[in-house]
C-alpha cells in the first residue's frame, strides 16, 4: 500500500491547518473504514491526521435541552450513554444494530457519518466506479445491484450510504458542527449529504479539509418514543438491506408529529418528508403508515436486483410506527 505520514495534532485548529496545507490528507478516526480502503488502494492519502485524541470525546447536555455529542465519542460509548438511551432511543438502537462490538469500540461519531459506500464496485480498483475514479463509469448500474439505491440515484452512481447512525441522526434534525479553515460552522444534517448527481465523488457539503467536531441534537421530547428497525441478510454484523428510524408523537390517536428516515435506499440517509406529511394530523393506523410509505416511495426507481427494497421499506415503516403507536 502507499506509504503515508502520520500526524497527531495538538488541537482542532492545527488539525484543520494540516489539511489546508496538504492536498491529499485525511482525518483518521477509528479507522474502521479508512484503513481498509487504504489497504485496498481505494483511498490513498499522503498524510493521516489522527484526531482521536482531540478533546472531542464528551457527550454534554445543552441549556435548551438538546445534546452535543463530540466527534470522537466511540459508537459503543454513545450507545450506552444513559441520556441517549432515555431521550433518543432511536440513536442507541441504530448504533447497536451496526457492525460488531469490536468495531463499535473503535468507530467514532464523526467518522461514522463519513463512511464510504459498501458498493462492491467502489471497493474494487479493478472495476469501474465514478465515485472512486470520476469518469470511469458505474459498473453497478447494470451489475450486481441488489444492495444499492432505489431512490435519487443517477446514471453516474447508484450507491447507498452505509451508516445506521446517520439514518437516526437524519430523523432527529441534527446539526453537524464542523470546523473549517476560517472557523466553525453549523450544517443541518438535511444539508450535509449530497445526492450523487453527476459528481458522486462528492458525498457531503463539507468544505475540503473541514473537521466534524460534534453533532448537536435538538431537544425533541417526542424522541423518547422512537425506534430504529434494521433488516439485514443475517441476524448480526451486516449492513442494512432496509432500515427505518422513526419518532412518533401522538395526540390521542392523531399524529401530532412524526420523523422518519430510511437507510439502504439512497446515496444519503433518506429523510422521508413526504411520508411524514401523509401522517401528520391524521389518526394513526397501520394502513395510514403503509400509505405514507407508498407516498415516499412513489418516485423510487428500483434497479434490476433490488425491487424488494420497496415492499421491505414499506413493511418496516408500518412495523416501526405501529410499535411506537402501541407503546
Amino acid at each position, binding site marked *: *500500500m502507499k506509504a503515508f505520514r502520520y500526524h497527531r495534532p495538538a488541537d482542532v485548529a492545527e488539525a484543520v491547518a494540516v489539511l489546508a496545507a496538504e492536498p491529499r490528507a485525511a482525518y483518521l478516526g477509528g479507522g474502521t473504514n479508512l484503513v481498509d480502503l487504504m489497504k485496498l488502494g481505494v483511498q490513498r492519502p499522503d498524510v493521516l491526521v489522527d484526531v482521536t485524541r482531540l478533546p472531542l470525546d464528551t457527550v454534554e447536555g445543552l441549556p435548551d435541552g438538546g445534546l452535543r455529542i463530540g466527534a470522537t465519542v466511540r459508537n459503543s460509548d454513545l450507545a450506552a450513554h444513559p441520556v441517549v438511551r432515555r431521550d433518543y432511543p432511536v440513536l442507541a438502537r441504530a448504533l447497536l444494530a451496526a457492525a460488531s462490538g469490536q468495531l463499535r469500540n473503535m468507530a467514532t461519531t464523526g467518522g461514522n457519518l463519513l463512511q464510504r459506500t459498501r458498493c*462492491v464496485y467502489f471497493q474494487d480498483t*479493478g472495476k469501474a466506479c465514478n465515485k472512486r475514479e470520476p469518469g470511469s463509469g458505474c459498473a453497478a448500474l447494470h451489475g*450486481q445491484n441488489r444492495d444499492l439505491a432505489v431512490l435519487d440515484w443517477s446514471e453516474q452512481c447508484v450507491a447507498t450510504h452505509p451508516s445506521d447512525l446517520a439514518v437516526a441522526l437524519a430523523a432527529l434534525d441534527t446539526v453537524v458542527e464542523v470546523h473549517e479553515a476560517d472557523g466553525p460552522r453549523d450544517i443541518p444534517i438535511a444539508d450535509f449529504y449530497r445526492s450523487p448527481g453527476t459528481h458522486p465523488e462528492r458525498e457531503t457539503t463539507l468544505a475540503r479539509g473541514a473537521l466534524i467536531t460534534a453533532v448537536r441534537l435538538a431537544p425533541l421530547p417526542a424522541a423518547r418514543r422512537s425506534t430504529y428497525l434494521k433488516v439485514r441478510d443475517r441476524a448480526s454484523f451486516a449492513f442494512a*438491506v432496509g432500515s427505518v428510524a422513526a419518532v412518533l408523537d401522538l395526540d390521542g390517536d392523531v399524529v401530532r408529529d412524526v420523523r422518519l428516515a430510511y437507510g439502504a435506499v439512497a446515496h444519503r440517509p433518506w429523510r422521508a418528508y413526504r411520508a411524514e406529511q401523509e401522517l401528520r394530523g391524521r389518526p394513526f393506523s397501520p394502513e395510514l403508515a403503509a400509505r405514507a410509505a407508498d407516498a415516499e416511495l412513489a418516485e423510487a426507481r428500483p434497479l434490476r436486483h433490488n425491487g424488494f427494497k420497496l415492499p*421491505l421499506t414499506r413493511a418496516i415503516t408500518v412495523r416501526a410506527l405501529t410499535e411506537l403507536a402501541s407503546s
Partner: protein
Amino acid sequence: MSTGAVGRAYPRLEGREKVTGTARYAVEYPVDGITYGWAVPSAVVRGRITRVDTSEALASPGVLAVLHHGNAPRLAPGPEPELWLLQEPTVHYRGQYVAVVVATSLEAAREGARLVRIDYDAASHSTVLTDDHPGLYQPDHVNPSYPTDTAEGDFDAGYAAAPVRVDVTYRTPAYHNNPMEPHATTAQWHDGRLLVHDSNQGASSVRATLAELFEVSPESVRVVAEHVGGGFGSKGYAKAAVVLTALAARHVDRPVKLALTRQQIFGPIGYRTPTIQRVRLASDADGRLTAICHDAISQTSTIREFAEQTAVYTRSMYAAPHRRTTHRLVRLDVPTPFWMRAPGECPGAYALESAMDELAIAVGIDPVELRIRNDTEVDPDQGRPFTSRNLVTCLREGAQRFGWADRDPTPRARRDGRWLVGTGVAGSSYPARARPSSARATARPDGSFLVQINATDIGTGARTAIWQVAADALGVPPERVEIHIGDSILPTAPVAGGSMGTASWSWAVIRAAQALREKLRDGGPPTGEVTAEADTADEVGGQPALPRYAYGAHFVEVRVDADTGEVRLNRMLGVFAAGRVVNPTTARSQLIGGMTMGLSMALHEEGLLDERYGDWVNHDLATYHITGCADVESIEAYWLDERDDELNPAGVKGIGEIGIVGAAAAVANAVHHATGVRIRELPIRLDKLIGVSDLA
C-alpha cells in the same frame, strides 16, 4: 484399548498456544532476511499478456523483484495445470496470478503490485453456468473415479407408470471456502533444498508436488504445517500460494513470505461449483420409491477438468427398482472449482433431500416416515449389504429428541406473532473411507513414548484424537505420549480431507504401536530408544470393497418474518451414526460446524458473479455473508454408540463432513413448512420471501 483415552473429552493439546497466540502459523515464523511477496491477479478473463512493464514497480521503494512469465524460474509441467504459474502468457480466468512482487516490507510489496503494468490481448469469455449451455458435455468420470452416469431398471417406464411423481430442479450458487487463515507460505531455499512453512491440509502431498514442479528430489523439500487455520478442502493439495512463494524465493535468493488476501482467495484457490440439479422421484401411493433420477450440471475450467460428483449421493441413499443418475459439465473461463466440505454429497443431498420432502407432501405422509419406508440394508449401487447403516435410528432418535411426533404437516399453519414457524427434516450420509498411511512409535528409557506421523490438524482436533488413539494402542496413559504431526520429515501420511484423516492416521499409529509393543515384549522401559514403524498400504489396499457409510438426520425449526421474509433458526438438531467417536469435545465441534456451514449454505452464502468482469464481486466477508451465531438460537449434535468392525482398527467413520450433508435441505424444508413457499434456488434470502403473507 485398555486405558480408555479414546472416547474421553480431552481439550485440544495445542489449545493454550492457540488462544494465547503463541501457536505459529505459516507466515508467523521469524526468518532472518525475510522478504514479502504479493500476488498480482490478471485483470482480464481470457486472453494473452502482450507486455509486462515492471519499471515503475521496480523503482518503488523496497521492491526487489517482479516475477512474471517472462522471467520466473521454470517449472516442470506437472499434473496440475493450475499450478503451472508464471510460465506462459496465457490468461485462463480473471484473478489468475500472473505476477508476484517481492519487497522488503509487506506494504512495499503491495504498492509494487499496484504499479506493475500489464497489457493484455483480451478475448471474449463465457463464465455463467446454464442448463442449455452449448458447451455441456459428459465427462469420462466424476470425482474421484466414479462412473459419470448410472442406470438400473428402466427409469422412464418406471417413472411414467407411477401414481405419485415429483419433477423439480434446484440451483445452488458458487460457494467460497473461507478458512480464517488464508493460503499462506514462508519459503526458503538453502543449497538447492527448499523449506516451506505452508498452510495446507497435507504436507506429504505438498512436498511431492513441489519436488515435481521444481525438479528436485522429495528429500530436498521439507513442508511444515504445524498449525493450520482451516481449509474446508481448499488446501487439500499444493495450491498457488506455495508455488508462487517458492518461485519468488528462488528468484530473489532470499526467504519470502506470501499470504493471499481475502479478496484473492475468492476463485483462484477453488470453490464449490454452482449446480443445476433436476430430480425426479416416483413412488407408489404409500410412498415406496419406484423410480429415482438425478441429473446434475456443474462447471469446470478450461485448463483442468473437475467433475463434482453431485449425484453420487443419490446412488446409495434410498432404494428403488428404476434408477438413473447423470453428470454433465461445462468448461467455462473460470478458475477450476475444487473441494469444499463434502464435495458432491453436500450439493447433491440438498437436492435429493429437498425432493424427498416434496414427495412426502405429494404422497401425504410424514417426511421422516417416508425416509424410513425407503431405507435399505443393501447398497442399491453396489448391490452389497452396508457394513452398518443406522439412518433409521438417527431419524427416530432425532425425531424423539426434537419432538417431531405431533407435527402437523400443513404448511403455513403456525404463527408466533409476526413469525411463521415451521420444521423440516433431512437425511445425511457420507462415505467412510481410509487411505494408506505410515507412522512411527518410539519408546524412551524414561517410560514415555513419541508418536510421529505427518498428519495435519487443520483446526479439527486431529492432533489430540491421534494422541488418544496412540495412548490406547500403546496401553499407557496419554500423559506419557508425545505426538508430532504436521511436518513432511515425519512418516508420510494422507491429507486431512474426505473425512478419512482420523481413520487413516489412526490405522497406521495403531499398527506402529502394536509393532513397538511386540519389540518391548518384556514390559518395562527400554535402556535406549526403541522404535517401530508401520505402513498400512497393503492392509488398506487389501480391504474388501464394501459399502461403508456414516449416516445422520437433521431436524430444524425456522421462523420466517411474515412481512420482511427474514429467516431465523430456532433450533437445529442433528443425530449421527459415525462409528466410534474418539473425542466428544472436538467431535461435537466438527458436527455443529458442518451443520452451521449447511445453514450458511441454505440462507446466506452466494458468490455473485458479474459476467462482464467474469469474477465474483462480493469477494470479502462483509459482502459474502457467512452465518453468525445470532442466526441460530440452539444447535445440538448427538451421536449413536455405533460399532462397525469392517471399518478400520480405530472403528471410526469420520465426522468432518457428515454434518453439512443434508443440513441445507432440512432448513429449506422447514422454510417451506413455515411459509408454504418452496424456494429451489439457494440461498433462501429475504428478497425471495418478502411479503410471504401474500404469497403461496
